[in-house]
């Protein structure tokens, strides 16, 4: 196409860019959703790990306490510290889990609006551009045949 039709070329370029953008951003949105699930799963696995560890630490503490007779209380301070530390780690993971849930919920609202743009707003814009391109091309053909 010659530079006479640079406007049509530019409009076609914009329409093609809109189509590419729509498909690419759908993929971005899918990957964003995958990241939410991956992070939730990862934190759930960590919480499960520290929960199991906490139960183990508590059992070891109880076993230590039970090992001493009524007259000889064993030194269980290391087991107590282990229970405390594991409990703190578990709580830390659970706080992150809560934060992830809250922020992922908020994000879903924004993602829903953007999804509406991809599903209906952009196709409407593409359709309007295609109609414009078609009418410009038809007008140029009329001009060319009349000249």
């Amino acid at each position: 196409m010659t530079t006479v039709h640079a406007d049509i070329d530019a409009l076609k370029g914009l329409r093609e860019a809109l189509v590419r953008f729509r498909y690419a951003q759908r993929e971005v949105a899918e990957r964003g959703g995958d990241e939410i699930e991956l992070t939730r799963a990862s934190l759930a696995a960590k919480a499960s790990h520290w929960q199991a560890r906490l139960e183990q630490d508590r059992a070891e503490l109880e076993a230590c306490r039970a090992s001493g007779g009524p007259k000889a209380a064993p030194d269980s301070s290391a087991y107590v510290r282990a229970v405390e530390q594991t409990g703190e780690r578990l709580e830390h993971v659970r706080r992150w889990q809560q934060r992830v849930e809250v922020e992922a919920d908020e994000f879903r609202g924004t993602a829903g609006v953007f999804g509406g743009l991809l599903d209906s707003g952009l196709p409407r814009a593409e359709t309007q551009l295609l109609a414009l391109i078609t009418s410009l091309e038809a007008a140029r053909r009329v001009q060319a045949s009349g000249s």
Partner: protein
Amino acid sequence: MPTRPDRDGDEQFRLLGAAWEEAARHWQDEVARQFEADHWMPLVQQSRGYLEALRSLLDMFEAAERETEF
């Protein structure tokens, strides 16, 4: 290492912006102004909002992973 989706989204947004600028050089009539108001500006606003929200969320996910490694 795969790129983060928000960065790919930013790049696609940049490419679309370049196509818009090229079209706007040649298309400056009333239809263009209406298209800009009806389609382009909402697209820019919603895309920026979405990509910023996605970036913030993924930053937070990275922090969550980092902060829960003991």
